[in-house]
């Protein structure tokens, strides 16, 4: 089973490896309790600018296209379209909706009808796939 953020995992792992290697923080982090270390890594990850700049994180409440998890960004960092395509081709429970959104996306995103469908599929995969 392919999990939604697999692509994101690969990128974040590599990003963090680059970030941590050679850093003065590295040796210090070794001695940290696991939960603290995890929190620091998350902090580094969020500050790394991988998703988006810090400024954009601070402006999450503004329009959808500027959030780190806009449909554009989700398409880039996850396999959501692969999952939708599989559902359209393999006859998943939402095959008709999947086929419809595959047709609609060819006409572009930032169209309310298209993005409503995409948000629906995003919600579905977040809800039904193991984190």
């Amino acid at each position: 089973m392919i999990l939604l953020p697999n692509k994101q995992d690969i990128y974040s792992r590599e990003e963090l490896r680059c970030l941590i290697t050679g850093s003065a923080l590295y040796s210090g982090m070794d001695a940290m309790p696991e939960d603290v270390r995890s929190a620091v890594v998350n902090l580094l990850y969020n500050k790394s600018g991988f998703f988006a700049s810090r400024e954009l994180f601070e402006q999450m409440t503004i329009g959808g296209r500027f959030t780190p998890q806009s449909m554009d960004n989700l398409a880039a960092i996850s396999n959501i379209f692969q999952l939708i395509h599989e559902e359209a081709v393999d006859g998943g429970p939402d095959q008709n909706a999947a086929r419809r959104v595959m047709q609609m996306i060819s006409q572009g995103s930032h169209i309310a009808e298209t993005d409503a469908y995409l948000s629906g599929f995003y919600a579905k995969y977040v809800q039904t796939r193991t984190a």
Partner: protein
Amino acid sequence: MGIRPAAGSVKRMLMIDSETTGLGALSRIRSLSSTGITVRDNGGINIGDTRSRVFFRQPGMEGGLIRIPTTGEVVSLGQGLPGQEIPAGAAADIIDVVVNPEQARTRLAQELTDYLSYDAIAFKNARFDVEQLMTTARSMPGFETDQNLKQALTAFSERITNDPHFIVDVDFSGRVYMRKKNTRKNARICCTSNT
């Protein structure tokens, strides 16, 4: 997503998305669409058909291009909407707020009222879309004297205030999901980086 019906029942939800004329204080909704979703008692989700789609031609939108929802055709807003350039059948979805404010107010009131008939409504980045919905309603020409739209907006406001499960933010759920995923993965990197 924080919404799960009792055993043996389902919940009806709407996934709503809006496109706006901008991001600032003066921005308004120019395109609004909703898709029906059914949430089952096992947490599963089924995605239905498009329930509604409407295009509000707001003041200042004399330029640009739009896609006609029913045909997929791309037309210039400079052509004037709604009008003969718009294919038959599409006009009902496209309302010029300046030329026909009453139709725009009536349609938005219908949308808001219809949302209330669902167990929950979901947005991606809910705060922005909900604020835009309410701002767009209040900025409609003639809002001050339109009791129908005022009542619909009041009912909508009361519902989102009093029913904590009514608004679902898919972005929030997504962030929690990805944070869990990343925390697990990042912890593994740290734990294994010394070996």
